[in-house]
């Protein structure tokens, strides 16, 4: 196994939600999440909206100030909240980049595509002169399937898929090692999604990138990832090799999530039995005690309300947090 590039330990991210003193309330967006990502690997992160997958990605890049936990990148401690150790981010921004979800909102409408991609090059002083800067911009645009004439155009002249390509070119411009892909395909049409997924794979092979791929579409995540982590209401509930996770899910939430995916095959769809979960995701302002999934879990009992299930390695490389793994399998 190759070495670990990203090590996240007990990451915690709470957002203040009003109130004073002991009445202060917090949205527990991410609570005690730990995972590693190996060099050149893609780790997928799935879950429903509000489960904290996007917050996890953004906190790692320090777009939010972490509330707790430790993040080690390539043996450098980026932050360690307990020891109050924080590193200056600018040099690391060159190594870690992000591709945002909404290609319509994440590009400045008043900047040309060239300037959008070039901004990062300026910030990190990567080009000695204008010619060099221009060359890098064009190279990046070509890498994502656009060409030099696009550099002088504005975002509104592009379709959604092309804009997402621009967003990827911007992230690539500083030649990063690690990219957080925050739902990069959810805003795209089905026929375009496959194009963008293929491009992510090609770029990974060419440039040796490591991805944290966040999405709610499990089939797309399964396609691109080596391993997948499933989150529910701020906690990681299961993590395993992607084929293993899909075929042999251990956690009851993962099982229901997989069975809820509509299958694009009429015969198989009629035969499959769906586990339909009752109710909605509880509010992260006031999450259930113990196991957070217990309010919707068919196997829940008193123990689930009393104790937080331990995050343990059940089989090699297959982690889950549930009291009733034996009962539900």
């Amino acid at each position, binding site marked *: 196994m190759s070495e670990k590039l990203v090590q996240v330990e007990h990451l915690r991210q709470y957002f203040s939600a009003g109130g004073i003193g002991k009445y202060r309330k917090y949205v527990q967006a991410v609570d005690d999440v730990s995972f590693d990502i190996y060099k050149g690997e893609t780790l997928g992160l799935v879950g*429903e*909206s509000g489960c904290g997958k996007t917050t996890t990605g953004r906190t790692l890049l320090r777009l939010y100030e972490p509330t707790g936990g430790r993040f080690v990148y390539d043996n450098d401690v980026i932050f360690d909240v307990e020891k109050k150790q924080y590193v200056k981010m600018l040099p690391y921004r060159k190594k870690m980049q992000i591709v945002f979800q909404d290609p319509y909102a994440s590009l400045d409408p008043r900047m040309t595509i060239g300037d959008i991609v070039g901004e990062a090059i300026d910030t990190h002083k990567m080009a000695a002169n204008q010619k060099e800067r221009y060359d890098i911009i064009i190279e990046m645009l070509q890498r994502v399937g656009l060409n030099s004439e696009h550099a002088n155009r504005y975002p509104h002249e592009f*379709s959604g*898929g*092309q804009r997402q390509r621009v967003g990827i070119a911007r992230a690539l411009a500083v030649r990063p090692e690690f990219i957080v892909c925050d739902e990069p395909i959810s805003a795209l*049409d*089905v*026929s*375009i*999604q*496959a*194009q963008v*997924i*293929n491009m992510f*794979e090609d770029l990974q092979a060419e440039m040796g990138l490591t991805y944290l791929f966040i999405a*709610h579409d*499990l*089939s*797309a995540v*399964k*396609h691109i990832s080596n391993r997948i982590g499933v989150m529910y209401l701020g906690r990681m509930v299961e993590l395993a090799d992607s*084929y293993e996770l*899909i*075929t042999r899910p251990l956690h009851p939430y993962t099982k*229901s*999530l*997989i*069975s*809820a*995916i*509509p*299958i*694009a*095959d*009429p*015969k198989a*769809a*009629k035969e499959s039995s*769906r586990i*339909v*979960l009752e109710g*909605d*995701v509880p509010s992260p302002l006031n999450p259930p005690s113990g196991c957070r999934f217990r309010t919707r879990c068919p196997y829940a009992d008193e123990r689930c309300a009393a104790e937080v299930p331990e995050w343990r390695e059940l089989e090699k490389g297959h982690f889950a947090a549930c009291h009733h793994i034996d009962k539900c399998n």
Partner: protein
Amino acid sequence: MSEYLVDIKNERLSFFTPAGEVKALNDVSICLKEGEVLGIVGESGSGKSVTAYSLMGLTAHPGKLIDGSLYFNGHQIETMSDKEMRKIRGNEISIIFQDPMTSLNPVYTIGNQIAEAILLHTDKNKAQAKVRAKELLELVGINEPEKRLKQYPHELSGGMRQRVMIAIALACEPKLLIADEPTTALDVTIQAQILELMMELKDKLGMAIIMITHDLGVVASMCERIAVMYAGKIVEYGTAEDIFYEPKHQYTKGLIRSIPRLDTKEHERLVPIEGTPVDMLNPPKGCPFAPRCDACMKICLREMPPVTNFGEIHYTQCWLNQKEEMEKGAANE
């Protein structure tokens, strides 16, 4: 009288924008019997919503119906006035919109909004309407209906709001329910709940459903008939089995191929449809899909292909099939 509940024939609809005419629908024909479920799939801008909205008389300015006949349950929609239309809208034909966050009125309670449809279309009084509203909430699986009736939309979650939308749509037991991407804004586990609810209600109330979506998975499990739309045209139409197991049009084939599969162990590369969706202001001459088609021939760029029929229901508009049919015919002679 028609044997169908819905019978749209050769509908043409254009939007006259300042930049030019956008032919949103180009010769669209759809028919649907009572109690059937039809799925319309296509990319954004392919005209799937416009088709359904025009059936409800909800074509927005600057859109205009140019040609075609829209028959629904004894009414000829294209000849009806706004006033007549208002009588059947929400009564015989209802719609659920994509975004339950924006389609409910934030300043009225849930009860108020459900009762509105009932008071408008039936001769029930306010008290009776309230009782009916409560029944409807129970029908769509909302617990504590008494309490919910007094709540405002912002107090409910996305899935609950979509249930309320369905309750409003079903208030007068419509013959036809149009569901315009009803689950796109929802999470998968909630989507499963809503789809299950819709199928249950369909069996209970015996209504027909037109399901508009871009998700092939959703139509596979729900719909008997599927229409695949591209650039304002129905490029292929057939039963769910026809579409998924014997797709004839290159676009349908491409769509099915480009879905990532869950059950494969080996990593397979996705086969995308290359290119970008059509610019509807300047659609290509000939077949609109030709510039993205991997089997494009010369004739595709020049002329729109005619309809090729396979059996009673299944048809497609593609030159490739036309060519194959002709070769078959020649061989037989």
